[in-house]
């Protein structure tokens, strides 16, 4: 009896292994994974396979096959650039999720309330979106300081620093436009203070304020304006600049240094 059981197990193992092999040899599998991909050939640790992991991966757009040894030390970059990008991805995912339950109208406040009370994981996702936004502002600024202290803005990386400053401004604008969306007292008055500061612009002050508020003060028209900027316009712009930023990091010779 026991022997038969083992045999049955072995047979099952053979069948699953055979299924796995035939799946890996199928046209569909081969069309999904590039030749040389570890998903196709299996992975054993060798310098050749280490290169193949990157080369047959969409991340090849982001990472070269090899990087300078000092650059992979965690204490060199503290992973700040990568974490800026990652918090942006977290914000995109949670933000899209929040868009299903949010209307930028007089219903905005009610929507946030029901998100917190009656929608599964609503409170968690809203909290994640908000804290990740604060963390992103902080991490982007720390990334900028890290780059400054390493002198990583020097030739040939001057222009990538300029793009980085643009990305910082866009991050602040994304955070600022998102600030209004809960449509509570904190949101409207923080944005009013910020908008009034912009209103002190010499010469064009009134016009700048009018364009920002879509009127003379923060109203529901402002809410719609900030919403469109927040979910569509600014992410669109920031993604373009991020693409240029990452491309230039590699084109300018990867990570700077060593010190």
């Amino acid at each position, binding site marked *: 009896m026991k022997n038969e059981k083992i045999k049955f197990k072995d047979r099952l193992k053979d069948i699953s292994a055979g299924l796995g092999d035939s799946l890996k040899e199928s046209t569909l599998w081969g069309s999904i994974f590039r030749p040389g991909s570890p998903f196709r050939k299996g992975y054993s640790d060798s310098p050749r396979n280490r290169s193949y992991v990157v080369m047959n991966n969409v991340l090849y757009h982001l990472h070269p096959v090899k990087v300078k040894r000092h650059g992979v030390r965690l204490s060199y970059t503290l992973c700040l650039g990568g974490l800026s990008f990652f918090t942006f991805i977290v914000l995109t995912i949670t933000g899209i999720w929040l868009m299903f339950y949010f209307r930028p109208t007089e219903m905005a406040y009610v929507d946030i309330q029901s998100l917190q009370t009656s929608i599964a994981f609503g409170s968690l996702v809203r909290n994640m979106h908000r804290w990740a936004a604060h963390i992103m502002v902080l991490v982007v600024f720390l990334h900028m300081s890290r780059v400054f202290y390493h002198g990583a803005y020097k030739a040939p990386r001057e222009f990538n620093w300029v793009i980085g*400053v643009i990305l910082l401004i866009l991050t602040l604008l994304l955070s600022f436009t998102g600030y209004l969306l809960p449509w509570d007292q904190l949101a409207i008055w923080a944005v009013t203070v910020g908008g009034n500061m912009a209103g002190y612009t010499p010469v064009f002050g009134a016009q700048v304020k009018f364009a920002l508020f879509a009127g003379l003060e923060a109203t529901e028209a402002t809410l719609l304006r900030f919403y469109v900027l927040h979910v569509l316009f600014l992410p669109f712009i920031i993604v373009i600049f991020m693409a240029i930023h990452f491309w230039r990091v590699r084109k300018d010779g990867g990570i700077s240094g060593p010190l």
Partner: protein
Amino acid sequence: MVDIPEHLLLKTAEARAKALGISVEQALAEMRGEAEPTKIEKEPDVIEVTPIEVEVKETPAPAAAVKETPAPAAEKSNGQVPTEVDFAPETKVTQRLLTVVKAKPIQKPTSEPVDKVNTWPHLMLPEFISLMAMTAFLIFISAILQAPLLEEANPNITPNPAKAPWYFLGLQELLSYWDPQIAGVMIPLIIGVAAFMAIPYIDRNKENNPSKRKYAIMLWTFFLAGAGTLSLIGILFRGPGWNWTYPWIDGVWFDDLLDWVHFE
């Protein structure tokens, strides 16, 4: 024998014929081994060299010996050396130098080799771990810290104080010192941003070692300290009417961290 292209053979034969004063056909035949090579009749002009007599001293210092060697120019003036020296007698020339090709590699190495490691696993694994850590941190903090949600927006009720988002609080604090109408806001801000962008074009020091760029590091550290101090004052030490308050006496007016500030 290696096949020599016909036109090259002809060219060489012409050169040989010219050098030896024979016909091209003759030279061609000689080169193909069909005829006896023409003997060189004309001997090259031999330059008569009179041995230089060097007075040998008792202690011959090499520098002194050189000094006493008669200069070649002086010997020339004697008239014993032919005025025109034929260093390459025509009769001897059987090939020509067309060009000199310097020996160099086709590909030039432009940069020094750098110590590198494989991205997988040395970069991608720590990256993945830090992303996971960040996700865990975000979920944890979102579970214990509630994002603030005050009463519904009401343009008729102004909270006191009305504070900007925390990253603008340093600016708001700074502006409270001057009348914003006089200080202007956006123009200094735009100039400030432009100055930030211009940093790499202003700082032309090529060094990136901290000990060789103390001035730049000092300036940035001052900026960080200033911005941090102003922001902290704006966040913690400003209460109703933007008056100075102490967080441990009067409390904190900072609704971003409502859940932290109000202990119930």
